[in-house]
């Protein structure tokens, strides 16, 4: 268990390194130089809390989710480790065997451009290694201009893959990835709220700051409440142990908070927020992309409800 103050310091140094890095690849390298890989091995949930909060604050496109997944699967972690992620809003393994081929339907991070091989989890529980060249997609223009993740739909031949030995399970990947992305969404939501709050104070209409209008104030207050609720659950996913249901709720609430905040911030930022002169659009696009990872704010409440019905009640999950 890392001391909370030390964890906050780590998040700060991670964020500083990300801000200095000119691109995603450089940020990847900088984080690994700072010991991100060792931190992940030592304290996976706390490490992810520090690094993904930094991703959210800076807007960096560093591909750290690959590392979280690789570590959870018991595979080597490095700045060139590439793990194929589930299809948008899904969380099951991205691949399945179809006769002599393996059908992959998922997302791949920008790491694919600098990796020789990518690791792919298959629905039968195995993990295979695939030549990265087979997974590099032709350049398409996607929503997020930095393209931290790309859509992947491809069939590879059984003979072109190597089955890997590993120690972790896909359920661990889901839990840790959900917690990590929740941290990033919460931090990114705070950035959007800060932008809107600053604008509301600065922008004058009818002879007074628009922050003085209750309609504006209540929209921003609702965003902060959504963020703090999601944040409180997400913080519970930075402890030594985390129940999978808790991580699912953190991810669900963080996705919902990002949607609420984006809508409120967009409305308050109004004209300027609709242009690329203002950085808001980058947060809007990034949080939309993040809310497709390992479920979405739309799909996860149903998953939570079904999990509770299978248990037949509501487990306590937290103690004072």
């Amino acid at each position: 268990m890392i001391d909370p103050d030390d964890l906050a310091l780590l998040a700060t140094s991670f964020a500083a390194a990300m801000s200095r890095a000119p691109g995603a690849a450089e940020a990847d390298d900088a984080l690994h130089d700072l010991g991100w890989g060792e931190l992940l091995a030592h304290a996976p949930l706390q490490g992810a809390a520090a690094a993904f909060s930094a991703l959210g604050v800076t807007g960096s496109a560093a591909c750290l989710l690959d590392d979280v997944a690789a570590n959870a699967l018991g595979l080597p972690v490095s700045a060139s480790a590439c793990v194929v992620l589930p299809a948008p809003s899904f969380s099951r393994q991205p691949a399945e065997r179809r006769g002599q081929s393996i059908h992959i339907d998922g997302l791949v991070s920008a790491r694919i451009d600098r990796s020789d091989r990518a690791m792919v989890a298959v629905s039968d529980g195995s993990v295979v290694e695939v030549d990265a060249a087979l997974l590099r997609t032709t350049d398409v223009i996607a929503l997020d201009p930095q393209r931290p993740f790309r859509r992947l739909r491809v069939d590879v031949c059984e003979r072109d893959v190597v089955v890997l030995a590993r120690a972790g399970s896909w359920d661990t990947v889901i839990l840790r990835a959900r917690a990590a992305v929740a941290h990033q969404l919460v931090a990114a939501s705070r950035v959007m709220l800060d932008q809107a709050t600053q604008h509301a104070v600065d922008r004058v209409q009818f002879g007074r700051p628009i922050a003085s209008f209750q309609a504006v104030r209540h929209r921003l207050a609702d965003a902060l409440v959504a963020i703090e609720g999601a944040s409180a659950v997400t913080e519970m996913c930075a402890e030594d142990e985390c129940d999978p249901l808790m991580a699912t709720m953190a991810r669900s609430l963080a996705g919902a908070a990002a949607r609420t905040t984006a809508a409120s911030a967009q409305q308050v930022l109004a004209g300027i927020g609709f242009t690329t002169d203002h950085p808001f659009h980058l947060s809007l696009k990034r949080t939309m992309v993040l809310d497709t990872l390992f479920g979405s704010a739309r799909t996860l409440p149903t998953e939570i409800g079904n999990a509770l019905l299978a248990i037949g009640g509501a487990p306590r999950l937290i103690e004072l």
Partner: protein
Amino acid sequence: MSDAIADDLPSFRRELNSWLDDNEGELRLGHVGHPTLDEDLAQFTHIKRALFDAGWGRHGWPVAVGGLGGSSMLRAVVGEEIATRDLAEPGMWSMIEVLAPTVIAYGSPALIAEMIPPLLRGDETWCQGFSEPNTGSDLASLSCRATAVEGGWSVSGQKVWTSFAQFAERCVLLTRTGEPGSAHRGITALFVDVDSPGITARPIEIQNGTLEFCEVFFDDVFVPNERILGAVGQGWQVAMDVLPYERSTAFWHRGAYLHHRADQLIATVAGIAGADGAAAVDTGQARLLGEAFQAVMAFRCRSRATQHRLAGGGQLGAETSIDKILIATAEQTLFNAARDVLPGVIEFDDDAEAQRLRWEFLYSRAATIYGGTAEIQRNIVARRLLDLGSE
């Protein structure tokens, strides 16, 4: 938070639960169907006395008022386990958690040594005289008048929304001692015996059929000087200090109650699905349950951090408006879900559980009204937490 408190809590909880298990039969008074207000009060008095006599009800309270000392977290744990076992109606439970700390903070040593033990033991019920017919959200405009007389104060005026006043022995009362229009500066808090001559309490029936709330009329009621809480003119500070107490152990108790009701609702729906086949639960129902439970957990995780901050000696302030909005949202989301996942139960059924859900659904409509409306909370968040300046 000190590690000692955290280390102690699990064993405290274990021992408490083992005692509750051993005494379950004697702790629960019987009633048929959904309890009446009188039955709820009898149960509440019964459990308070049993907890006090066994010592559990004294942990977390100062030794000077009959307690055994220790962190307020111990009280939070007791409240949580009581709520989880449906052993006390949550509104009644919160009355002690809200009023006792306020009186301890502002009453004279002699007053609190005399008055707090009977409250903790369940011998007395107290009420909170804050709101008035023309004073809801704008509490500082209250006009119930206290005029200086020989040896004390004469109180005349009216309060409303005073929970359990018809049963109460004492009342924490906000009065206007300054000039009319002196707003928050001219308010004084008094600790009043409800059997004083000149006090009349008249219950108001609320939409779920309960007579919990009262109008209370004060006609030249004498209150001696030693019953002033704090100083003359300090009443606004007393009232503002009530809020952090409401939002600490009392909120933790209410959150535990909501969690418990979510648990029961899910078990009910799962039972129907088990009997009729999985098709009885559709995706929409699962989603509503998921949304309700994650709303409850968002509040509980937030409140957990608040409890730790308070127990660690921190001051609670405007940030607890977020706790308040989250718990109101959780309560309404939960009972809205109950209405929709059990179609027609609240509207038509008449068994004890249906009566209870009907009672709770209707009561939950007030979660965004009492204790500072949702709009007032958002004003506080905007001004104090987002620094948006004045309106």
